[in-house]
């Protein structure tokens, strides 16, 4: 089924894009991440121009996070105060990211920066998650209990001034920490077209020390608003949002996300986390190799 993408100026097989969206949606529903970190590289690999890929992936992440937010809201799994603070940081980060995107694009280094950012972040987070899930799996097999965590959250976080009470997260910390976290994800959303869930979730758990029951819901809440804004920003600045591409991706991913979420309820969380860690590390490894190997295309064209 050939579909012409009017903004990307390209004819693609529509079923492949829907399938791609479905696969990513399945993973995102299963692991509670947006899945943007897979969409953008896969679309570029398929031949979609990088800017169009990043811009359209943002709207796909919006779609997948919506249904997640509704589901978690019903279970009381969203800390709105914490989410609102992060959204404020995310909005500032999105504007900053838009400026950074333009500067890097003019310098011609946007692709390299995107790739290096991916390798560093995916490598660090994949390693952290993999390590943690292997430890907990070992403890489960050996029957020995996991050593208790030494501290609730990072000492730097505890030392920040103006503490607020975040009841649902069970925290009494300064809003500066989630604000900064929101800012970072805002920048990443704009640069990479990712929701940032794969950074938010571990950071909220291990750095902020939020209670696990509200982590995924709150991160989805933040991602929802930041990706909505990112889509708007792309529509206004790069004009690279391809609505046809977005619809195809959404068709697959919103249904995939629901199937993935149902699947996740049956699987053990330790195995789920290990599987996600493996996927994240594989993507990081592939991108790292891509930086070091001689690329297929030495030359690239951009409008003057």
């Amino acid at each position, binding site marked *: 089924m*050939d579909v*012409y993408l009017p903004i990307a100026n*390209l004819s693609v097989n529509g079923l492949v894009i829907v399938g791609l969206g479905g696969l990513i949606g399945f993973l995102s529903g299963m692991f509670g991440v947006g899945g943007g970190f897979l969409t953008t590289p896969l679309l570029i690999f398929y031949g979609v121009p990088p800017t169009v890929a990043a811009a359209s992936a943002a*709207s796909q992440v*919006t779609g997948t996070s*919506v249904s997640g937010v509704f589901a978690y809201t019903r279970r009381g799994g969203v800390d709105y105060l914490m989410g609102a603070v992060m959204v404020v940081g995310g909005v500032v980060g999105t504007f900053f990211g838009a400026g950074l995107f333009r500067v890097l694009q003019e310098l011609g280094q946007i692709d390299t920066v995107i790739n290096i950012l991916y390798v560093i972040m995916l490598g660090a987070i994949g390693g952290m998650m993999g390590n943690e899930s292997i430890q907990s799996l070992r403890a489960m097999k050996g029957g020995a209990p996991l050593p208790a965590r030494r501290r609730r959250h990072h000492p730097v976080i505890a030392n920040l001034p103006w503490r607020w009470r975040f009841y649902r997260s069970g925290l009494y910390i300064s809003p500066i920490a989630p604000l900064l976290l929101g800012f970072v994800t805002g920048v990443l959303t704009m640069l990479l077209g990712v929701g940032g869930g794969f950074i938010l979730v571990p950071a909220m758990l291990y750095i902020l020390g939020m209670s696990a029951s509200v982590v995924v819901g709150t991160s989805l809440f933040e991602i929802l608003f930041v990706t909505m804004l990112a889509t708007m920003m*792309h*529509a206004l600045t790069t004009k690279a949002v391809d*609505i046809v591409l977005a619809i195809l991706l959404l068709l697959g991913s919103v249904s995939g996300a629901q199937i993935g979420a149902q699947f996740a309820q049956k699987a053990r969380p330790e195995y789920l986390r290990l599987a996600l860690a493996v996927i994240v590390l594989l993507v990081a490894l592939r991108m790292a190799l891509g930086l070091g190997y001689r690329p297929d295309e030495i030359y690239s064209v951009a409008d003057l």
Partner: protein
Amino acid sequence: MKALLALLLLVLLGAARDPILVPEISQHEIQVRQGFKGTELLLFGAILTPEGARAAQAYDIVVVLSGPPRSIVLREKQKVAGVWINAASSDFRSAPTFFAVASNRPIADIVDERTAAIYELGLPWLQLSPIGAIDPDRQRRFAAGLVDLMRRQGLYQQDEDAVSVSGGVLYQARIDLPSTVQTGTYTAETFAISRGKVVTAASTTVEVRKEGFERFVAVTAERNSFWYGVFAVLMSVGMGWVAGRLFALV
């Protein structure tokens, strides 16, 4: 005075002996709409003497189809500290977005290099109008890089067997346009060449444009970008919500 008259007469006679080229294209307008997978253009026509008779000698035919030019930055990756990054770049004022050369036999056998360069007959002779300080070696390297890149994307083509001439009168050439072509006005130039000299040339145009829904989307994204963005956001929220509702029922 007599010599001048004789010269004038010679020029006039020469001009009168030039054959007439009547070019035509299978489509003067290509509509890019849903399901557009690219298209094949048939460029055909006839070579006649001014009297409308069949030309006495055999001509070589070269057809050049070029798309709207644009200003580009061409970047070159180099390995810096173990990582391939864009290290050098070159600006070109007018690189065609599409360029196809079709001929009935190898260009090198038809014309010499000078003529080929003057009429841009062939990818090596593409005029890219580089901007800024020009180091010939560097320019040549970048131009070759661009041609190679565009060639593999199917946007630059050179087929030395794509023109067929029948009976010394009719010629036809086929050129493939991939789905990634830019919109705009394309110019098709046909050259009739005899004994290494371009004896006559004629050109026609093809308009490539988006139509219907595709045109609407492209124009809206460009002119009403705010509402386009709002629609994209609402649509993604709506689709996520509907899917959530549907699956909650299952």
